[in-house]
């Protein structure tokens, strides 16, 4: 009686975590299609690999009971927690160094933060200042 009650509670917790995780995954996937450019799409991907992935993993943890599989799931969650921001940063930093800039920047504090150093490494900044947005917007407008 008591054991079955705990099992029911675990099933309910799993159902809640899976439902919320799936909703985050769906909205994140929808956002990747709907958002206009690379930079905004990174945020939709962020929803998928943090809230979505972790909630699915937490839902699975409730189903294993307390054994070695739970520990393995905790390890997976931990590695996702550490590696996903590293990967996101690597991708965004590579795009930044390559000269890709967000569409319609409302506020740009690049100079205050980094000084003049990185701008010299960006080819389109020096020459094509008259036509901003050509490098950053081509993919998003297609």
């Amino acid at each position, binding site marked *: 009686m008591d054991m079955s009650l705990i099992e029911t509670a675990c099933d309910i917790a799993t159902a809640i975590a899976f439902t919320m995780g799936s909703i*985050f995954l769906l909205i994140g996937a929808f956002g990747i299609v709907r958002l206009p450019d690379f930079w905004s799409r990174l945020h939709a991907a*962020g929803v998928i690999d*943090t809230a979505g992935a*972790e909630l699915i993993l937490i839902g699975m943890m409730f189903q294993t009971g307390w054994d*070695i599989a739970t520990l393995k799931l905790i390890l997976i969650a931990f590695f996702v927690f550490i590696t996903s921001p590293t990967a996101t940063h690597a991708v965004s*930093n590579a795009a930044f160094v390559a000269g890709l800039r*967000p569409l319609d920047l409302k*506020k740009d504090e690049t100079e205050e*933060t980094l000084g003049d150093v990185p701008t010299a490494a960006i080819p389109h900044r020096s020459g094509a200042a008259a036509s901003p947005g050509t490098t950053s917007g081509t993919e998003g407008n297609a």
Partner: protein
Amino acid sequence: MLRRTHQDAGTEMVKAISLTIALIALWLTLSGYFTPFLLSIGVASVLFTVYLAARMRLLDDEAVPVQLRPALFLYWGWLGGEIFKASVAVCRVILSRDMTLSQQLIRVPWDQKTEMGRTIFANSITLTPGTITVETGDGAFLVHALTDEFTGSEGFEEMGDRVTKVEARHR
């Protein structure tokens, strides 16, 4: 990456022992078998790995971050809550009918004393949907934010203070 090559032998010993314990725990978790043969193979591999790490001078604050306070786990719990709130906010932006973005690259100052502390802060900003650390400069990160909703400086200050509290046992 600048590494401190000179640290006292005591610290290095503590780090070597910590790495051994962590690797044994990892082996037992991933293996799940407790036969004498597999256990002895595990112990041999762990000792060999620790020997190699010591020889490569990897036993520093970056590879074996035992200098962090255990309150880091509480910080992760708090961060989980922040991630959830920010995820809901990003989802609301994605699902809104006109989807008004105001993308910006903003300056977020840090005051952590160690590289590990700055790394934790930068990764926490990236983990929170709606903000991504793009580059680090002199005393500040360059952060990309999706809308005005994510640029509040109090939010960053609170996160930074919490990271500063867990970054080192001794000050």
